[in-house]
C-alpha cells in the first residue's frame, strides 16, 4: 500500500472510519479544532454534540454496551479532557470498550519551544490522570504513527477484558501534513490476551460439574462481553443448574427462564442469595466477585468447590479463592466444558436439588400481581416490564432506582440492561441511554432514573432533542438522595444530613423547557398511559413518578454481613 499525504486530523478520522466508527460523541474546543474541522469532509462519521463531556463519555459507554461495538468520544484539552474522567473511570470499572480522543496543547509553541509540560492554556496531564483508569493510553507524537496507534487502541479496547483506551492528540500534530500509510495487522509483543482454556482445567471443571449434586452457575458481565450467552444457556439446561447472575451479569441469562434465580448481592434477589449459598459446586463465569456481589467473603459459598472462568488472570484469587481457575474467553471455555459434559451426561431427570430450588422459589419469590393497585417502585417496574417490548434497552441511574430495577425489572436479553455497576456513577443512565439509542435506533430505550441522579446529567436533554435521539426517562421522584437517605435512616439514626432535594425542579416543565415532552404519573393507569405515549413519541419523554421519600430498597444484606443474612421481603 502506498503512502498518502494528509493532515494528522484526516489521518485520525480515516483511521476511525477504517475501524468502522460511524458515531462519535463529543464537545470541541481550541485544542481539538483541526479534528473537528476535518469532520466537515468526513460525512461517514456522525458527530453528536453532548452538553458536557461526561455525557459524551457515558454515551460512548452506553453505545458500546448496547451494541458490543466500541464507543467513541471526543473532547478538547484541559477541562474537556478532565470532564471525561468520570465517564472513563466508569467504563474501566465495568470493562466497557470506549475509545476517548482528547485534544492536547501543541508539542511545540510558536517559537519552537516545547509546549507540553509548560502549563499552557487548557493544558492537563490527561495521560497521567487517566493511567489508572484506562486499559491503556497513548500520546501521539507523529502523524505517521496515527494508523498504528488507532488500530492498537481499538484492538486493546475490544480484546481480552475490554476497557477504555485514551488517545491524546497534540494540536500541532493534528494540523501537520505528512505521509500516512495503513498496514494490516497489529504487532504488540507485550499484549497477547490468552483466550483458549487449558484442556486440563476444562477436564477438572467438567468432572466437578458431573459429580455435583447441587450445582449453581454464577454469570457475570463477562458472559455477555464474550457473547457466551448461548453456551451458558445450553450448559444450564443440560445440568439443570440454576443460574444466578451478578448485577453486571443481569441480562446474560433470561430472567424469566425457569432456571433463573435473578441477581445476587447486597440488594440481590433473596432466591439467588439463598440458593447460591447451598451450592456444592459453583461455576462462576466472567465475574470479579465484587464486594457488593459477595457480601462478607468468609461466608460466601464456603462449602462449595468453585470453578472460576475469567479472561483476566488477575481476577483469579483476587477476592475469592477458587479451586479450578480457568483463564480464558468465556465463550471458548463454556463451549469446551459443554463439549466434554455432553459426552458424560445425558439430559438429567429432575433431582432433589431442582425440587429444593422450586421450594425456595415459591417461598421467596411470590408471583407478581397481575393488576397491581398501588403505585410503588416494585409494581411500577413490573408494570413497565409488561409494557416494553422484549428487546427494549433499559439503562438505570445509580441509587435506589438502580437497585429496584435489579430486583424487579426482569432483563430478558443480553445487552438490554445497562447500568453503572462498578463505579456507581450517578448521572450515567441518561447519557448512556442516548448512546444506546444511537447504536440501536430501531429499538426503544428507557432510562430508569431517580431525581437525584437524573439531575446530574439532565442537560443532555438538549442533546437528545437537537440531535433527534428520542428516549424515555422514568423518574422515580422521591425528592431525596434516596439510597444515602436509606443508609442514614438505617445506620445514622435518621439524621438526614444533606439528602433532601425537595421538589425542584419540576421534571415535567424541565422536559418541556428543553423541547422534550413531560408527563406526571400518580397511579398505575396514568403510568401505563404515559409509557404508551412515550413509546409512540418521536421526541424524548420524561415521566415523573412521585413516590414516597421514605421508601426503602429491601431486601438488603447489611454491610459487613454475608448473603445469608439478608433482611426484608422481596
Amino acid at each position, binding site marked *: 500500500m502506498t503512502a498518502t499525504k494528509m493532515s494528522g486530523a484526516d489521518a485520525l478520522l480515516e483511521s476511525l472510519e477504517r475501524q468502522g466508527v460511524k458515531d462519535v460523541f463529543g464537545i470541541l474546543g481550541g485544542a481539538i479544532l483541526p479534528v473537528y474541522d476535518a469532520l466537515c469532509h468526513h460525512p461517514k462519521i456522525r458527530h453528536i454534540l453532548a452538553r458536557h463531556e461526561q455525557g459524551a463519555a457515558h454515551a460512548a459507554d452506553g453505545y458500546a454496551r448496547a451494541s458490543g461495538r466500541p464507543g467513541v468520544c471526543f473532547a478538547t484539552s484541559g477541562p474537556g479532557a478532565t470532564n471525561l474522567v468520570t465517564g472513563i473511570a466508569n467504563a474501566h470499572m465495568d470493562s466497557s470498550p470506549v475509545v476517548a480522543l482528547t485534544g492536547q496543547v501543541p508539542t511545540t509553541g510558536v517559537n519552537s519551544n516545547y509546549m507540553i509540560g509548560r502549563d499552557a492554556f487548557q493544558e492537563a496531564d490527561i495521560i497521567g490522570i487517566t493511567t489508572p483508569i484506562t486499559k491503556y493510553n497513548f500520546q501521539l507524537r507523529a502523524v505517521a504513527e496515527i494508523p498504528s496507534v488507532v488500530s492498537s487502541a481499538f484492538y486493546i479496547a475490544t480484546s481480552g477484558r475490554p476497557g477504555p483506551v485514551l488517545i491524546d492528540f497534540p494540536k500541532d500534530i493534528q494540523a501537520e501534513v505528512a505521509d500516512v500509510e495503513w498496514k494490516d495487522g497489529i504487532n504488540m509483543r507485550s499484549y497477547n490476551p490468552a483466550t483458549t482454556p487449558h484442556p486440563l482445567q476444562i477436564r477438572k471443571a467438567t468432572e466437578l460439574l458431573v459429580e455435583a449434586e447441587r450445582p449453581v452457575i454464577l454469570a457475570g458481565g463477562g458472559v455477555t462481553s464474550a457473547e457466551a450467552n448461548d453456551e451458558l444457556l445450553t450448559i444450564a439446561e443440560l445440568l439443570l443448574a440454576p443460574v444466578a447472575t451478578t448485577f453486571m451479569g443481569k441480562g446474560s441469562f433470561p430472567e424469566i427462564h425457569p432456571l433463573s434465580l435473578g441477581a445476587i448481592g447486597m440488594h440481590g434477589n433473596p432466591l439467588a442469595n439463598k440458593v447460591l449459598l447451598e451450592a456444592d459446586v459453583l461455576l462462576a463465569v466472567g465475574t470479579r466477585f465484587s464486594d457488593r456481589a459477595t457480601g462478607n467473603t468468609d461466608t460466601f459459598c464456603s462449602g462449595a468447590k468453585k470453578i472460576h472462568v475469567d479472561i483476566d488472570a*488477575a481476577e483469579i484469587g483476587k477476592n475469592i479463592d477458587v479451586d479450578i481457575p480457568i483463564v480464558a474467553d468465556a465463550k471458548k471455555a463454556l463451549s469446551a466444558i459443554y463439549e466434554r459434559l455432553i459426552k458424560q451426561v445425558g439430559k438429567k431427570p429432575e433431582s432433589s436439588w431442582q425440587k429444593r430450588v422450586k421450594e425456595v422459589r415459591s417461598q421467596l419469590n411470590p408471583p407478581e400481581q397481575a393488576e397491581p393497585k398501588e403505585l410503588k417502585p416494585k409494581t411500577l417496574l413490573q408494570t413497565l416490564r409488561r409494557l416494553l417490548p422484549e428487546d427494549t434497552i433499559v439503562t438505570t441511574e445509580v441509587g435506589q432506582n438502580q437497585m429496584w430495577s435489579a430486583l424487579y425489572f426482569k432483563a430478558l436479553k443480553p445487552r438490554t440492561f445497562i447500568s453503572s455497576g462498578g463505579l456507581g456513577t450517578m448521572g450515567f443512565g441518561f447519557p448512556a441511554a442516548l448512546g444506546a439509542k444511537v447504536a440501536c435506533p430501531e429499538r426503544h430505550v428507557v432510562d430508569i432514573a431517580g431525581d437525584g441522579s437524573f439531575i446530574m446529567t439532565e442537560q443532555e436533554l438538549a442533546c437528545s432533542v437537537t440531535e433527534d435521539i428520542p428516549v424515555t426517562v422514568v423518574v422515580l421522584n422521591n425528592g431525596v438522595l434516596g439510597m444515602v437517605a436509606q443508609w442514614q435512616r438505617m445506620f445514622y439514626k435518621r439524621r438526614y444530613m444533606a439528602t433532601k432535594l425537595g421538589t425542584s425542579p419540576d421534571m415535567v416543565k424541565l422536559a418541556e423547557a428543553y423541547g422534550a415532552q413531560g408527563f406526571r404519573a400518580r397511579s398505575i393507569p396514568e403510568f401505563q398511559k404515559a409509557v404508551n405515549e412515550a413509546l409512540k413519541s418521536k421526541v424524548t419523554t420524561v415521566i415523573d413518578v412521585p413516590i414516597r421519600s421514605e421508601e426503602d430498597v429491601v431486601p438488603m444484606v447489611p454491610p459487613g454481613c454475608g448473603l445469608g443474612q439478608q433482611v426484608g421481603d422481596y
Partner: protein
Amino acid sequence: MENNQKTSVIAALVENKPGVLHSVSNMFRRRGFNIESITVGHTEQKGVTRMTITVSGDEKTLEQITKQMNKLIDVIKVNQLEPESIVTRELALVKVNVPDIKGRSDIINCVEVFRGRVVDVSPESLMVEITGTPDKIDAFLNLMKTYGIAELARTGLTALSRGVKSLKIDE
C-alpha cells in the same frame, strides 16, 4: 498475618517507552503494594527494559503483584525470582568522614576486607564504592557509622537467576 510476610524479587521485561515506569509504580501505589526497591535498566535486547523490584507481602499479595504487573499492556514478561537460585547485587557510593591519618588507614583496611574501592579522596573524606548483597552493604555501612557517613547513595537491588533459567522474550 505479619509472619506470613516475605520479601521477594520480581523481574520484569517491559517496553522501553515513556510512561512505563509511571504505570508500574502507579499500579503499586493504587493497589497498596509496597516497593522496597526498584532498579531499571536496558537489557541485551533493543527496546526492552528490565525492572527489578523488591517487594514484601504474603503469598497472595505476591501472586497479585505478579498478575497485576502482567496485566499492564507494556509489560512483556514478569517473573517472581526464586530466592534460593538467584544472584543479587547492589552498589553503594559512600562518602565517609576521615577523622585523622589513623582513621583513614582503618577505613581503607575495612574497604579492602569488604572488597570495595576507594574512588575519591579529599582531606576530610573518602568516597567508597562497594558492591554486594544488601546485607553486605548494610554490614559495611554499620562499620562506617563509627566514622560518620557524610553522604550515601545506594542503587537498590538488581538480580539474575542462576544457570540456564533466563527471563527472555519468546521469539
